[in-house]
């Protein structure tokens, strides 16, 4: 079976043909050093976490240096890759053989191609900026060294996730980022809410991980391997049923990590972590791992249209859910978290559109990484100046007092609502186009999403930076130190030019990714100018409604009652209630009945067997109390069974 498949695999691989089918060369020269990308932050984490208090003084500098070193390495690799011809930009770096057990072997090797280097630059670039920002943000925290250690650990794990060339190795990175995320959400463990949120993220992510595990198990069953090259090249030989199953399992994994419906509930609570963590892990990088997973598995999804439809549906539901939740939250970070869910919904939806959407999903992922990190860090800067107040009903009029934060935040704001020529305009518009080209329903979902996005972001902007001053504290809110505003300016600039740059600089991101993701041109059901006009009009309507509600009128400090939708949105659209009813209750019943079964059933079975052998039912209870004689009788019974089993086999 395996040999037939691998023969098939070789045959398909030589043909190439679909996305992911580009030739992959053994790495030479500078590409041979790809492992350094992971080694730097891993070493940083090891020094900071093992070194203990001795490294307290320089811990933050070591952390930043490790991340920046990795970024520089990423740049070197990127430019080296640009120097290669466009069909020779994928390299594998063989590190060592992990296991070779019979028919199944796993190599620890890295895959450096156009897709992974894009992620590497995002992770290390934005990651380094957030490391620098954290020097200021965490200055007064006595566990700052540990914080940087965890951040480094996260960066290392995330890089392993995107560089792995085998699903199993990727899964190690996948679990690594989960661990780092868990540690960082619960970083302020003295707060009960933080440890509860960390546990929730942990548990929900395990559900997603089951999807990953099942996907890998299916791959082993079908392809006999979890290595990218084998799986992708032999995908065409597998049955559509299996591919759909694998695709759905991978989608479940992606839902867990990327907070997509129905596993979205942990992300809002994850905002209990320090704000730089929210920016790096829960906005820019880790939560996009699901999108990476789907795009990376393009070869499977290309052949499984049903699975792709499921991806689109999940993306559409989440993008609307996240946007609605974002409208009702008064906590600035939770509003941004709802927005993150919604934007990742866009990416997942785009990824579900197949070759027409993969590149746009990654494009939006990158621009979103810029402007969302920018806004989260901006929110952190606001909180820093407001004694960690997160309730926007206690903000107001901050644009004068925090000019740098305001200006950079405004760049992120204009980017996310999609005003040309800011970054989000290019990336989101491409997704809306692709969605309309696919069908009207997805198109409308993305269009409505854009309108709601404009509404809640304008609301956030108005409540925070404009309007009446509603804060109670005695001293004036202050602007943050340069070590924090510096990264804000860089990210702000990227929010302005990132979209245009990525789309048009050089050959543009679509051509850049084409060898990995494949390419498909779509035909719009209407002229492009009309669609752009409609989109912009929707955005303007959203902004206008928000201004009418929060700009013209003074914002109330108490929470108004609100209508049914608002109340539902405040309660995360009853995501927790849903989980409780669908997962928790049945789970509790299951465990309860298992315990019951264990007490009655399993013990009963043991006792029952003993009765048959010993015939002394009155002494059954004592059997468990450890009498040698009862043990001996059990053994004797076992002897009888074993000998009988041996003899019975020979009977015809």
């Amino acid at each position, binding site marked *: 079976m395996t040999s037939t498949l691998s023969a098939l695999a070789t045959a398909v691989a030589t043909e190439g043909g679909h996305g992911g089918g580009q030739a992959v060369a053994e790495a030479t020269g500078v590409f041979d050093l790809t492992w350094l990308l992971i080694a730097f932050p891993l070493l940083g984490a090891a020094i900071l976490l093992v070194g203990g208090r001795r490294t307290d003084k320089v811990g933050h500098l070591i952390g930043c240096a490790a991340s920046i070193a990795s970024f520089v390495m990423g740049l070197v690799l990127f430019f080296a890759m640009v120097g290669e011809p466009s069909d020779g930009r994928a390299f594998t770096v063989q590190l*060592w*053989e*992990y*296991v*070779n*057990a*019979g*028919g*199944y072997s796993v190599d620890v090797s890295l895959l450096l191609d156009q897709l992974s280097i894009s992620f590497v630059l995002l992770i290390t670039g934005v990651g380094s900026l957030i490391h620098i920002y954290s020097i200021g943000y965490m200055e007064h925290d006595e566990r700052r060294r540990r914080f940087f250690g965890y951040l480094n650990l996260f960066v290392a794990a995330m890089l392993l996730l995107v560089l792995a060339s085998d699903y*199993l190795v990727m*899964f*190690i990175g996948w*679990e690594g980022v989960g661990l780092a995320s868990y540690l960082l959400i619960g970083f302020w463990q003295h707060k009960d809410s933080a*440890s509860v949120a960390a*546990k929730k993220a942990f548990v929900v992510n395990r559900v997603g991980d089951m999807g990953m595990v099942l996907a890998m198990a299916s791959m082993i069953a079908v392809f006999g391997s979890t290595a990218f090259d084998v799986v992708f090249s032999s995908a065409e030989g597998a049955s559509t049923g299996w591919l759909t199953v694998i695709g759905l399992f991978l989608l479940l994994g992606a839902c867990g990590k990327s907070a997509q419906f129905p596993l979205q509930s942990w992300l809002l609570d994850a905002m209990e972590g320090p704000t730089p963590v929210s920016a790096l892990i829960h906005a820019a990088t880790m939560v996009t791992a699901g999108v990476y997973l789907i795009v990376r598995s393009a070869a499977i999804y290309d052949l499984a249209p049903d699975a792709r439809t499921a991806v689109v549906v999940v993306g559409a539901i989440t993008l609307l859910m996240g946007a609605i939740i974002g409208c009702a939250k008064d906590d600035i970070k939770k509003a941004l978290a709802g927005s993150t869910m919604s934007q990742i919904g866009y990416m997942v939806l785009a990824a579900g559109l197949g070759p027409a959407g993969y590149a746009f999903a990654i494009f939006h992922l990158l621009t979103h990484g810029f402007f969302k990190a920018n806004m989260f860090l901006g929110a952190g800067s606001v909180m820093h100046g407001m004694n960690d107040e997160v309730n926007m009903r206690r903000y107001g009029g901050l644009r004068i007092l925090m000019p740098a934060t305001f200006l950079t935040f405004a760049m992120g704001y204009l980017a996310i609502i999609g005003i040309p020529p800011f970054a989000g305009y290019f990336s989101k518009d491409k997704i809306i186009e692709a969605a309309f080209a696919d069908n009207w329903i997805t198109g409308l979902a993305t269009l409505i999403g854009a309108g709601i996005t404009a509404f809640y972001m304008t609301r956030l902007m108005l409540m925070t930076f404009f309007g009446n001053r509603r804060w109670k504290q005695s001293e004036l809110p202050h602007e943050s130190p340069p070590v924090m505003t510096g990264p804000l300016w860089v990210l702000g600039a990227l929010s302005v030019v990132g979209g245009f740059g990525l789309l048009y600089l050089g050959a543009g991101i679509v051509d850049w990714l084409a060898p990995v993701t494949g390419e498909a041109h779509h035909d719009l059901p209407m002229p492009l100018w009309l669609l752009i006009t409609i989109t912009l009009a929707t955005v303007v309507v959203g902004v206008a409604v928000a201004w009418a509600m929060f700009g013209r009128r003074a914002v109330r400090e108490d929470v108004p009652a609100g209508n049914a939708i608002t109340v539902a949105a405040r309660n995360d659209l009853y995501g927790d209630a849903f989980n409780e009813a669908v997962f928790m209750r049945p789970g509790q019943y299951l465990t309860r009945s298992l315990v019951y079964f*264990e007490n009655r059933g*399993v013990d009963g079975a043991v006792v029952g067997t003993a009765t048959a052998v010993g015939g002394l039912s009155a002494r059954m209870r004592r059997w468990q109390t*450890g009498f*040698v004689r*009862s*043990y*001996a009788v*059990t*053994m004797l*019974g*076992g*002897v009888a*069974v*074993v*000998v009988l*089993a*041996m*003899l019975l*086999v*020979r009977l015809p």
Partner: protein
Amino acid sequence: MNAPTIEYAELAPLITIFGAAVIGVLIEAFVPRQLRHPVQVGLALLALVAALVQVILLAGTDMVAAVGAVAVDGPALFLQGTILVLAIISVGLFAERRLEAGGDAFAPAASSLPGSEDERILVREQRLQTEVYPLMLFAVGGMLLFPAANDLLMLFIALEVMSLPLYLLCGMARRRRLLSQEAALKYFLLGAFSSAIFLFGMAFVYGYAGTLRFGEISEALTANIGQDGILLAGVGLMAVGLLFKVGAVPFHSWTPDVYQGAPTPVTAFMAACTKLAAFGALVRLFYVAFGGLRTDWQPMLWAVAIATMLVGAVVALTQTDIKRMLAYSSIAHAGFVLTAMVAADSTATAAILFYLATYGIATLGAFAVVTLVRDSGGEATHLAKWAGLGRRSPVLAATFALFLLAFAGIPLTSGFVGKLTVFTAAIDGGAAPLVVVGVIASAVAAFFYVRVIVLMFFSDPAPEGPTVAVPSLWTAVGITVGAAATLLLGIVPGPLLDLAQQASIFVR
């Protein structure tokens, strides 16, 4: 009549250990009391290291020595080497003297009445029990011989040489002596019972084959037609004797009581090394001598493997004592090894060798951690007392969590690679349904391992919880080696897998 030739060079590891054990007994008689402890520990370590060096030098040997009685081949040498490494760490645990005020884990005199005036005097004088070291060396000698034994008589002698000192060692705990003595007596009675069954089976097999040597038995299987009943009954009875030693269901009932009652360093030694030696013997006997009968014994092993995995994993769920929990966990692990054994080929042998090595080292480490968590009554083995240990002593709790994750078979630990190899071997050997049961049992088992981790890290510490004692270098080295090996073999298992692969052919 010619005297038989004995290949002394190839038997050197065995001779070294047994010789050192005899010298150890003489030391007890002739060396002054104050010097005995350092001398005995030194001698034991010296002998074990010397034997290990000899085993390494013998690597690649493939022969039958001592007139056909002892095999010197890949599986034997691999297991002997592993047992010696584990025994060296165990000596360190035995010699730990910082945990108990003025003593080690052993009663000053096992014969004194618990709670009597005699005992109090001995404790006050800080008398140390040093006979444990020669006893341990005898046990190690038996363990080295057990997987190498190539005829029935040698197999039985090795079994007894290995077991008798262990019975004694189990009864020597300094604390909770009645529990310890009860465990020893139970172990002895049940062990004697299983030995008798084993001997009975041997007699049947000899009656059928007319020879004691494995190779000749194997030939007799194809030669003698008829009288199969006596042979099959013999094979079944011998299987029982060996399955008892590995702790397979339904011959497992001694395991929890003995693991709980024995002094923890002895439990660690026993759990790690006995299992290795007994599996070595079981695999050799069934592959070499009874290989031709595999279709007859495979169904029986299927049943035993399934029962072992399920009972071990399910019953462990309700345990409240950490040592009992680890005991049931060891039962479940015996079941996982049995799944591979059903396959009966060299891939399976390699998988079993690798699994045993990784399991042994993690077990040793886990029990070593148990010796450190103490309250006023000695070791605090009740699970409730481990609540919140992660806050009190994060490093220790993280190390223990690592061992538990390895037992649960989580990636990046040696346990994952071990489970993967045994399950793959079982699938290749046509035992896929067993693997399904194995995976289910692993899932159940993962639950109670993770429960302990959750308890350690997410529960509030008990108000009068145990303290974590600071060990001397002996225990610290043992735990560190165990943790490092568990992690390293999880990340780079290749070299050891290759070694196991090379060592997987039995001499015939």
